[in-house]
């Protein structure tokens, strides 16, 4: 029997699904990614260190901030350039904005309808007007954080090597700080809704991977933690991860020690739940989610908890940055430094960076020539890591939802789509 879904809506990018079932056994279960190859790693070669982070941000319109910042971090690592504490704080605030706005989009607009059998969000909004308002308010807060610091919420402009082209207006940061209480209430409302949904009881074991840095719920720095135990430096993990390509596919899938693994909210929760902020931790305890959690559908409530945690974190960091003077040192006047560093390079210098994007850990590797051009580049996105895991889960989950039936009708197809959406895949990132 063949199962085919031509197009799965409400995910970032385009994909269909195909599976073959022979004698009740799932022979193949594939997400058929329908994105063109933009060859980002290729086209960045030969281009200037000052422009590549703007170009690579265009990999994704949902998470441009994390592409922009991971790229900058990798360049700074290669060029051995340190950033000020304020720059690190402002970058983390932008990231919080990104993680909040992306999760709000995914939770309310992409995934929620799966639990009510409503295909149209406009109907969902009519049914849950108060929660729709909460989702929009939370998303707007995330957008505003990015806009105030980055100059624009989609493809931000101010971050550059070593700092910022322009510093944010403190008045605007104060306005955002004053909103955090109200936003936290909305985030909690949303989290309650998602923690009370009924998730399919599907459990499997799989390695889970995220950044980890005690005592933080790491997003911007740290080591790569695998299944709560092993720890590797990002550059080392990048060497270990095995990427492979299926014929005709423009997405590279990934394996860790020969196994498909999962990144994203539920993996972060598994690795770092101890470091959730108080309100998020309280909701987490009340929800009685046992860790490590091996149900991929729990990526959804994990994202909901993360929104609460991140609004709290934004409040903390805004308070911190507002107590400081933003000085010239935070504006990137490091061109001379970049020049000095480049002059020291003999053949090439390289740097790797990893940060937590909304959908999981994002890696950038650059090799730079003495002329300040990109010689080599490698980008591994969260969905490129999750894809093999998602397909393995679908293969494993299909017999459960098919039961003894010999066809996959609407309800069965709905469950397939629900699992796909629970992973919050971004196919434009995966292909790039």
């Amino acid at each position, binding site marked *: 029997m063949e199962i085919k879904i031509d197009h799965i809506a*409400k995910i970032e990018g385009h994909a269909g699904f195909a599976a073959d079932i022979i004698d009740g056994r799932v022979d193949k279960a594939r997400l058929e990614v329908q994105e*063109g190859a933009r060859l980002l790693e290729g086209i960045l070669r030969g281009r200037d260190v000052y422009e590549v982070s703007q*170009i690579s941000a265009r990999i994704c319109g*949902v998470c441009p901030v994390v592409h922009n910042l991971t790229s900058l971090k990798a360049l700074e690592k290669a060029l051995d350039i340190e950033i000020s504490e304020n720059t690190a704080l402002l970058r983390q605030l932008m990231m919080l904005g990104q993680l909040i706005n992306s999760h709000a989009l995914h939770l309310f607009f992409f995934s929620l309808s799966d639990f009510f059998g409503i295909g149209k969000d406009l109907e969902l909004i009519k049914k849950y007007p108060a929660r729709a308002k909460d989702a929009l308010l939370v*998303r707007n807060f995330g957008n505003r954080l990015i806009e105030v610091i980055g100059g624009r919420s989609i493809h931000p402009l101010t971050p550059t090597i070593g700092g910022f*082209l*322009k510093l944010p207006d403190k008045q605007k940061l104060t306005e955002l700080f004053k909103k955090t209480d109200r936003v936290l209430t909305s985030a909690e409302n949303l989290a309650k809704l998602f923690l009370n949904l009924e998730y399919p009881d599907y459990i499997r074991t799989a390695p889970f991977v995220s950044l980890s840095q005690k005592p933080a719920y790491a997003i911007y720095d740290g080591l790569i933690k695998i299944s709560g135990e092993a720890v590797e430096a990002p550059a080392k993990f990048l060497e270990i991860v095995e990427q492979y390509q299926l014929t*005709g596919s423009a997405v590279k899938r990934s394996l860790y020690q020969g196994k498909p693994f999962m990144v994203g909210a539920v993996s972060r929760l598994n690795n770092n739940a101890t470091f959730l902020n108080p309100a998020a931790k309280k909701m987490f305890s009340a929800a009685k989610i046992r860790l490590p959690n091996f149900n991929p559908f729990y990526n959804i409530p994990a994202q909901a908890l993360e929104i609460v945690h991140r609004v709290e974190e934004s409040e903390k960091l805004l308070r911190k940055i507002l107590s400081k003077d933003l000085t010239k040192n935070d504006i990137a006047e490091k061109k001379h430094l970049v020049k000095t560093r480049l002059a020291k390079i003999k053949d090439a210098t390289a740097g790797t960076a990893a940060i937590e994007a909304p959908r999981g850990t994002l890696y950038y590797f650059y090799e730079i020539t003495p002329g300040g051009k990109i010689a080599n580049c490698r980008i591994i996105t969260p969905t490129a890591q999750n894809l093999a895991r998602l397909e393995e889960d679908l293969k494993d989950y299909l017999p459960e939802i098919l039961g003894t039936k010999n066809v996959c009708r609407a309800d069965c197809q709905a469950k397939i789509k629900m699992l796909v959406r629970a992973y919050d895949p971004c196919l434009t990132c995966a292909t790039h």
Partner: protein
Amino acid sequence: MAKTKPVIVIVSLTCCEGCQVAILDLGEKFLELSGKVQLGDFAFLEESPELYHYDIVFVEGAPITEQNIQRLKDLRSRSKILVALGACAALGGIAEIKNYQDKEERMRYVYKNIEDINNPDIKPLSAYVKVDLEIPGCPINKDEFLAVAKKLIAGIPVKIPQRPVCYDCQIKRNECLLQKGEPCLGPITLGGCNAPCPSSNYPCDGCRGLLAGASYQNPMKQLAKQGFNEQEVKLILQRFGVEDTIYPDKTI
């Protein structure tokens, strides 16, 4: 019987989908607008079957795969008005950078197995089908989109005013980056964006495409005088694919 609402669809080809995100970020303004139309397909919000006829189709992204091209042609044949949304659809976008490189080498660099992966020269939608209107930008200016969409829905013809980014920049009273020695493409780039880039001290890199009828030579000479060599300038012009318009004969 009530007058039927116009059917509108928002479709992506290959791109970052940031223009769709921008539309969604209109928030309640978008919801208000969507009440006035029949939303045929907007993959971010809807899971709806294809309709036969569309009044207005907004297409973001560049046609890269064969399916992209087929989809574009099919949409054109079923739509009254086709609008190219954003830099990828209007110009080719950042994917077009490979047109200025050895694209086969770039493909082999990224993929071991290049079989069945499409690698065409990147062209705007207008190279494949008739485009009625282009809303430029990377990403689009969402307020401009809203204003244009409202007019189109009301049946009012729309033209994007041909003014340079400098016009927007002056309204914002920004300090001129070009005069400060930055390689800003503001004078030759189509405005209407509210100049978010120069307002962030980031020189305009031409994401809205060239201003019709602008003289390109003087700004190029100006950049040369400021110490930027031709290759440096070309790298900037390639970002949104306008190098071939300014230097039609040669590439790096």
